[in-house]
């Protein structure tokens, strides 16, 4: 019997407007006039007050997992702190928070006063906020959307950041709740750094998150490519373990600047595990130079506007 076959063009899911903007997947696609008003009625104003004391908010995204978003975030924070800026870092990964490990504040816990959460102090006075400082090592978070959103709200509105020059926000892999929530709660985001590895697999996912940012009207500072050429420590042979070129290709496709390639470097991974950012520990490395140049560029961009 012949089957009537049709190509699946889209999954048909039912979405009516129930007026609950913060729970709505179509938030960025929506052009209803009520949208902005509805959002203001919620607890956004507390978030806005806390964020207004921070001059520049920058997020590191990638879409794809394991490309080095957190490495880039902690090193951006460290590089800025090394030149005297007041920096805070917000780890938006609830399932697998890595920021505390990479900044050497694992196990230090986070404090709480009547006025709010007190960020943990990291190297060079960097203020660290992360679920990793709250959850015990052997506790699993299996949160769905609403709890994540509530946690994000807590971490933005009820943390005593104080006056800061920069807040670096590390967003986990994916293009859903975690990314969307933070963009909704910080409408005046200075911009995003998109991290990708050189492979096409990574590029394809990074492309999706870049599209999302553009839909949400978050400025994209540029694309930073990580895990580039590996140099054998014994014989100095350079090799591309992971193909090449995705960073440049993505930047061209999305018409944003290409910020450079951080090479695949044993020392970089070691720094992550040991909790000392590579810009500090190995300031003369190629990795540090690329990262520092990125910071130069970012500072040029944010202090303009």
């Amino acid at each position, binding site marked *: 019997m012949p089957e009537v076959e049709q190509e699946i063009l889209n999954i048909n899911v039912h979405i009516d407007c129930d007026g609950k903007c913060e729970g709505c997947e179509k938030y960025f696609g929506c052009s209803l006039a009520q949208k902005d008003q509805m959002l203001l009625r919620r607890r956004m104003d507390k978030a806005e007050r806390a964020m207004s004391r921070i001059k520049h908010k920058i997020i590191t995204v990638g879409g794809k997992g*394991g*490309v080095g978003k957190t490495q880039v975030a902690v090193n951006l924070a460290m590089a800025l702190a090394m030149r005297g800026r007041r920096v805070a870092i917000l780890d938006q990964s*609830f399932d697998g928070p890595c920021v505390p490990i990479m900044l050497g504040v694992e196990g230090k816990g986070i404090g709480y006063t009547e006025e709010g959460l007190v960020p943990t102090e990291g190297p060079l006075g960097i203020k660290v906020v992360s679920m990793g400082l709250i959850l015990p090592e052997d506790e699993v978070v299996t949160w769905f*959307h609403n709890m994540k959103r509530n946690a994000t709200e807590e971490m933005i509105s009820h943390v005593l950041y104080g006056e800061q020059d920069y807040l670096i926000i590390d967003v986990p892999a994916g293009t859903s709740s975690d990314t969307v929530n933070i963009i909704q709660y910080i409408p005046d985001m200075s911009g995003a750094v998109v991290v990708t590895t050189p492979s096409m697999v990574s590029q394809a996912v990074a492309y999706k998150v870049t599209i999302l940012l553009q839909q949400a009207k978050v400025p994209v500072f540029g694309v930073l490519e990580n895990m580039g050429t590996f140099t054998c420590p014994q014989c100095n042979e350079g090799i591309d373990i*992971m*193909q090449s070129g995705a960073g440049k290709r993505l930047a061209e496709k999305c018409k944003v600047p290409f910020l450079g390639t951080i090479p695949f470097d044993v020392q970089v991974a070691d720094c992550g595990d040991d909790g000392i950012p590579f810009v500090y520990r190995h300031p003369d490395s190629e990795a540090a130079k690329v990262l520092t140049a990125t910071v130069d560029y970012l500072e040029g961009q944010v202090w303009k506007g």
Partner: protein
Amino acid sequence: MQGEEERRGIVALNVELSCDFMCENCERFFKCKSPEKLKIFDRRRMGRVRQTMARIKHKIAVCAGKGGVGKSMVTANLATALAMRDKKIGILDHDFDGSCIPRMMGVLGKKLIMGRKGIIPVEGILGIKIIAMGLILAEEDTNTWYHELRRNATEEFLAHVQYGDDRDYLLIDLPPGTSSDAVNIMQYIPDLDGMIIVTNPTRVSQVVAKRALLMALEAGVTVLGVIENMSGYICPKCGVNTNVLKKGGGETLAKEFDVPFLGRIPLDPAVSYSSDVGKPYVYEHPESPASKAVFLIADQIEEMVGEKIQEEICQK
């Protein structure tokens, strides 16, 4: 700043959770001891899922917690390795945001078809049947789904796909994290043969993989073992093996939880290349160290789920 602040350490986030009997939406599903739990759950649309899944011999989930350690790469190549032994395989790419399996299996651009009896999977090499969001969404489409839509999509992918009656294995590739997508799979397939945890050698990856492992244990899912991917790189020029990403995270994790350590897969440019062009390396380069590692893992998995007897492995 004022004088002494009264600081208390935060031991947990206080979020309100009353039971509204919506088990399929409950983050505390695995911790819940209420006897009502499973009864309520069966009343929902699990029946159809159970029927479809019952026709598949073995269901195995591949998880990591940490992103970018190689779950999809391992899933694609493990599937291919098993198919090279004449097993009938299905792959469910359960990463909705960053669906990579279609590219890795060389079926990017093909589309899923809706037949009379359900969704018809796309077929890759060696008859491997593939279901993935990447076979529906266009390249520039972004998925910003929250929990409900994901759960519904999972249900569709489990209940309404024509996997057929002859699949020996369904490998389920999970995204990074321990949230909706991982939990939904474990809820909807209570007879999962087990979960494979993929990690890389770094401590950072191990710390996150630990949470994924704990999640599986909490859910009562058997952990079939831990694979350490990206383990070492042999320079083609001088032959020296450099542990680019440190060493040992995978084996340590397996020991800590007393689960099998399934093996190490080395870094190899051919692996990344094959993922990009869609030709699984176990098929293109079966003699490479990376492929041999995957074949060995396939052996162990087959033995664990009861498909292969111990003697056959010893003979190799």
